[in-house]
């Protein structure tokens, strides 16, 4: 285990000053997520255009450095991606967080990929995986128009 790998500067920066932490106007999809064990909460807002491309994305919530950084980085890199790309990325991210050493996606630019891969160290801390995945599960729920709140324990 390596704490330095988990708490990299980029994670700490995003955790401390998360990007896109607001409620956007004119969102057309949203979903809530909750990790009852930690108390982490996230409310995700999405604005998709006619071609199902993400025009804007933001979130509100509170949580640990890992969950805030994950939501911050996620919302940063998903702008201008279309729905099928987003779904592919979600799958790729879950695989990286749980087992694979890195991302296999070709959708992201190199700097975006590097940023997201900073979260890869979480896999050494099984109890913290849920912190990293909460906003991503919530994103999937928003895209699929699920009504009920995402709960990491279900």
């Amino acid at each position: 285990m390596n704490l330095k790998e988990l708490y990299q500067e980029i994670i700490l920066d995003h955790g401390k000053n998360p990007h896109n932490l607001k409620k956007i106007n004119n969102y057309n999809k949203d979903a809530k997520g909750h990790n009852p064990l930690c108390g982490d909460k996230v409310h995700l807002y999405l604005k998709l255009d006619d071609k199902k491309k993400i025009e804007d994305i933001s979130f509100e919530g509170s949580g640990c450095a890992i969950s805030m950084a994950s939501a911050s980085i996620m919302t940063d890199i998903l702008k201008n991606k279309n729905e099928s790309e987003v779904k592919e990325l979600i799958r790729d991210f879950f695989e990286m967080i749980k087992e694979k050493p890195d991302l296999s996606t070709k959708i992201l630019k190199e700097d975006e990929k590097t940023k997201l891969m900073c979260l890869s160290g979480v896999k050494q801390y099984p109890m913290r995986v849920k912190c990293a995945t909460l906003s991503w599960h919530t994103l999937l729920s928003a895209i699929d128009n699920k009504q009920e709140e995402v709960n990491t324990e279900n």
Partner: protein
Amino acid sequence: MNISEIKKEFPIFNNKVHNNDLVYLDSANSSQKPQVVVDRIYDFYTKEFSNVGRSVHYLAVAATNLYENTRSSVQKYLNAKNKNEIVFTKGATEAMNLVASTFGQKYLKEGDEVLITELEHHSNYVPWHYLRKSKGIKIVFAEIDQNGEVTLDEINKKITSKTKIIGVTHLSNVTGAILPIKEITQLAHSKKIPVLVDGCQGAPHLKLDMQDLDCDFYAISCHKMYGPTGLGVLYAKKKWLEDLPPYQGGGGMINEVKKEGITYGELPNKYEAGTMATAQVIAFDQSIKFLEKIGIENIIKHEKELIDYGQEILRKNNSVKLIGNPKNRGAVLSFTIEGIHPHDIATILDEDGVAIRAGHHCCQILHDKLGLPATARASFGIYNNKNDIDQLNSSINKCKKIFNLK
């Protein structure tokens, strides 16, 4: 028994955690087990195992005697008037569910009030919530003051003519506040209201005397008392156990079963349906003996020193904010660090072998009141010492360094 030597009785401390000595500060969650308790479970299963209370063969009779011996030990430890006032359950949670369910069934109707406190663990709130749903009772919360305590005065203010039962914790698992149970009971009884005490945190750390406290029900979690998991105790005054309906139905709790009707067994069998946690009950006798050997006065003195020292050290640490400032504090120190989420604190401390808990500690009502989504909690047991607190403080400083805090 020398309290400074006590750690040696707990085999878990022979192991390293991430190559560090274990600093176990999560005893409010569950305590570690002394060798005598572990051995007793092994010996029972390897040499003496049988189910209890049913068969007449040699092993069954011996096992039944051992099982009932624990009941006598618990009675003595709690200074309960009667052996049959001790009911074994699968945990304190089940003990409180038993009270809510059976008392609710017989005595609560729509509009009746159950008075609990904002300090309560979910296990002394959720069972009452079921009755709110099914019967339309009202749950009233006695509020905490600025010190994280619930005063006798506050309880008095919240009692109305509709209050039918009061549920209070003996010792808060978050603020560490020790509640004046004896006074609360006196007040409640003057208004003919029974009192259920959640003794999960009280039982391992305080002197227990049921006849002195005079409460009607007292729920105990054995795994927090250096005993096995899967076991709890409900102390209830005999008059209640005779008066209330059974909780679960099945083998062992009946007297006579006919197609036309059923009569129930004598106390305490009436409340012990099915095969109980036999090995755990028998091993719990060793936990009681272990506590008695150390002596509760010595435990209280030792833990008071730890709490005082812990408060002193953490108050000096300028980023740490202690949660609650009760006059009488039990072996719990909850805290936050401005700028670091409790879960990040817990992960970083774990790297040093320091085991704490982070979260809402099954007290969401209290955390909402405090305006905190989560807190970090260090809680103590008899095996802790001042070095553990020094290590806690130095690992907290490591968190601050990682998060670039001063």
